[in-house]
C-alpha cells in the first residue's frame, strides 16, 4: 500500500540529506547518488506503510540506500583499488596522527573513494551516521567482528594514504 502524499513529502524533507549523502559517499558520484536516492524514495513510497516507527523508517532507509548504492558501485566499470593490502606494508610510514592537518579533511572524502567497498561502507556508516559497530552489523547483516575488522583496516588504510598524500604535498611546496 502506497504512502499518503503528505506523509511521503514529510519523510523526503526529513531524510533526503541522509539518503543522498549515504549514496554519495558509497558510490562516489553525484549522478549515481541521485539515481540511488530516487529509487530509494520511490520504494519507500510504494511500501512505506508497513514501516511502524521513525526508527524503523530510518533503519530501512539506511539499509536500502546502502544496498542500492553498493549495487550501483559494482555495476560501474571503474573499480576502487583492489590492492589495499599493499598499503598495509610496514614500509609505509608509521601511524603519525601528528602529521595530519586541516588539508587532510579536504582529501579524506577523495581518499575514501579509493577504499574497497566493504571498508568504505562501514566507515561512512560509522562517521557520517554515527552508528556503533553492532548497529552497523545489524544493518548490513554481518557479524560484529567483520564490521570491526573492516573499520579498523579501513581507518589504517586511510591514515596511511593520508600520510603519504600529505608528505607528497609538502614535498611539492
Amino acid at each position, binding site marked *: 500500500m*502506497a504512502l499518503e*502524499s503528505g506523509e*511521503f*513529502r514529510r519523510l*523526503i524533507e526529513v531524510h*533526503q*540529506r*541522509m*539518503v*543522498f*549523502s549515504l549514496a*554519495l*559517499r558509497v558510490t562516489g558520484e*553525484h549522478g549515481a547518488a*541521485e539515481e540511488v*536516492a*530516487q529509487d530509494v*524514495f*520511490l520504494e519507500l*513510497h510504494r511500501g512505506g506503510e508497513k514501516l511502524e516507527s521513525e526508527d524503523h523508517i*530510518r533503519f530501512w532507509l539506511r539499509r536500502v540506500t546502502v544496498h542500492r548504492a553498493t549495487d550501483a558501485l559494482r555495476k560501474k566499470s571503474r573499480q576502487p583499488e583492489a590492492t589495499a593490502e599493499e598499503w598495509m606494508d610496514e614500509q609505509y610510514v608509521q601511524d603519525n*596522527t601528528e602529521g*595530519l592537518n*586541516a588539508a*587532510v*579533511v*579536504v582529501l*579524506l*572524502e577523495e581518499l*575514501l573513494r579509493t577504499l574497497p567497498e566493504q571498508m568504505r561502507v562501514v*566507515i*561512512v556508516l560509522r*562517521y*557520517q*551516521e*554515527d*552508528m*556503533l559497530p553492532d*548497529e552497523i552489523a545489524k544493518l548490513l547483516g554481518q557479524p560484529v567482528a567483520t564490521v570491526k575488522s573492516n573499520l579498523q583496516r579501513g*581507518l589504517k588504510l*586511510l*591514515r596511511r594514504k*593520508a600520510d603519504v598524500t600529505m608528505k607528497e604535498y609538502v614535498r611539492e611546496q
Partner: protein
Amino acid sequence: MCVNSDDEMKQHEEVEQLDPLEAKLRKALERVDAPPTLRQFLETAIEAQEHQKRTGKLWFRPKRGGLVMVMPKPWRWMMSPWAGGAVAALLVAGVFATGEHVHRVHERQAQATQQFEQATQITDRTLERAREKLRKAGVNLDQ
C-alpha cells in the same frame, strides 16, 4: 549509539573523544544537501500517481513540462532488463500458438465436412432403397 539529526551529531562529537583522524573523518563526512532535482523528481512522481488515481489515465503532463507515463503495477515488469527477451519469446510462442490453433480449426472443419458428407450419402442410400420399395409396391412417387 545512533544519532539522527545534524544537531545531535555535533553534540555527540563534543562528548565522544575521537582521535584526530576520526574527528577529521566526521567533519569530511558531514551530511550534504540533496540536489533540488531530486526533490523535483519525487514531486513529479507524487503528482503522477495522484493524477493516475484520480483519472485512471496513464499519461500525465507535469507542471514543469514534459510527459510522464505512470506504469501500472502489472506492466512494471516491462522495465526489467530481461523484459525485451521475454516479450520476444512470447511473440514467437504466440505465432506458433496461433498457427497451431488455425491448423486445428481447419482439421476440425475437414472432419465435420467429411462426417456431413458421409451422413448425406447414408441418407441418400436409405432414401433410394425406400423409393425402390415403394415403386415395387406400385406407388407412383413422381406425382
